[in-house]
């Protein structure tokens, strides 16, 4: 693990976002130089009803969709409400604000700087990835999840 501390920012719009809006925003953000990681956070939307009398039935939901970011497919499993990012340096910040201004035209948003994702391995990370975990994976996905992060190849 490196000792470098990378700046982190959180974009919080005033509304939960539609997949089309997320797609538009991510395509702008992913094209910005200097963003190391992007984490989409929001309320989970499972493919099946997880509990209650309708347990196990399919849960079709317009917000559970696959979007395309720079040519790569990303399955949205949440109704996105927060976008956390880790930057190489602060220099990417104006471009991030510009991307948000372009997309969030019908409602306001806020950009906060602070610590929003983990920077060192927890016990769960250790159990999942072992002692030599790749630092870039930390904080990107729940270590208990079977799904990994999406790595954008930038081929699109």
């Amino acid at each position, binding site marked *: 693990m490196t000792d470098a501390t990378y700046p982190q920012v959180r974009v919080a719009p005033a509304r*939960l976002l539609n997949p089309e*809006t997320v797609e538009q925003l991510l395509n702008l953000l992913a094209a910005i130089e200097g963003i190391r990681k992007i984490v989409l956070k929001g309320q989970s939307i499972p493919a099946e009803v997880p*509990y209650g009398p309708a347990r196990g039935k399919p849960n079709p939901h317009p917000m559970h969709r696959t979007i395309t970011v720079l040519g790569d497919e990303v399955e949205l499993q949440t109704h996105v409400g927060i976008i956390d990012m880790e930057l190489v340096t602060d220099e990417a910040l104006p471009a991030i604000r510009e991307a948000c201004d372009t997309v969030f035209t019908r409602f306001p948003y806020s950009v906060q700087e602070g610590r929003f994702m983990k920077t060192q391995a927890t016990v769960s990370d250790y159990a999942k990835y072992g002692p030599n975990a790749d630092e870039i994976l930390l904080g990107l996905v729940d270590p208990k999840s079977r799904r990994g992060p999406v790595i954008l190849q930038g081929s699109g």
Partner: protein
Amino acid sequence: MAYKPQYGPGSTTPAENRRKYMDPKAKLAKVRDATDEDVVLIMGHRAPGSAYPSAHPPLAEAGEPDCPIRKIVAPTEGAKAGDRVRYIQFADSMYNGPSQPYLRSYLEAYRFRGVDPGTLSGRQIIECRERDLEAYAKDLINTELFDPALTGIRGATVHGHSLRLAEDGMMFDMLQRCILDQKDGVVKYVKNQIGEPLDREVKVGKPMDDKWLKAHTTIYHSLVGTPYRDDAEAIEYIQRIHSLRTKYGFMPKE
């Protein structure tokens, strides 16, 4: 002097609305026309048109014991027929939703007979005999206590009351029981309250506009509505209650 209930403190719009909704003499404005069949479909307890299943024989046939209380209290229609006890549950958005759990329980206790309201932070359930419930549920849906976008009829998986709204103004619902039709702007229930798909869509009308919501809300909200701190009378009341109960914790002796 005859006792006149005050229902609640406050000098702002949410406080006035709370008093109005709780007062059984105040008539609630009817703003939409959900039919009996619509209500039965959304609740999902029985097929529309089917007979009411019963939990016990009708009271007339049951041979009730000689009881002074039973002589005083007339049974509701549902109790008389021996209906099952069934429920409807609501989740109300904090973003100027027209109702909220505590108020719902109060107003149901004031306005309806034979009900068992259950109050929780993000949802409110009302239980009573099935045919009574259908009549009460119709009132709760058709009057100003309901907004198609900000009130959810949710038997399970209720989460959403405190979340930001979706881009189209709908409250988050993991099971997406109702959707806003972008063409005609009407909210339609596509699943019943526990998330089972419905045979036909049930329309519950267009979401109310911001002005209407602000005038009819019973929730204080510092960002989108009336901040609680702006209501001096309500603050004074709550501080008095807080002070009295704190002092009473020390068992003061006069």
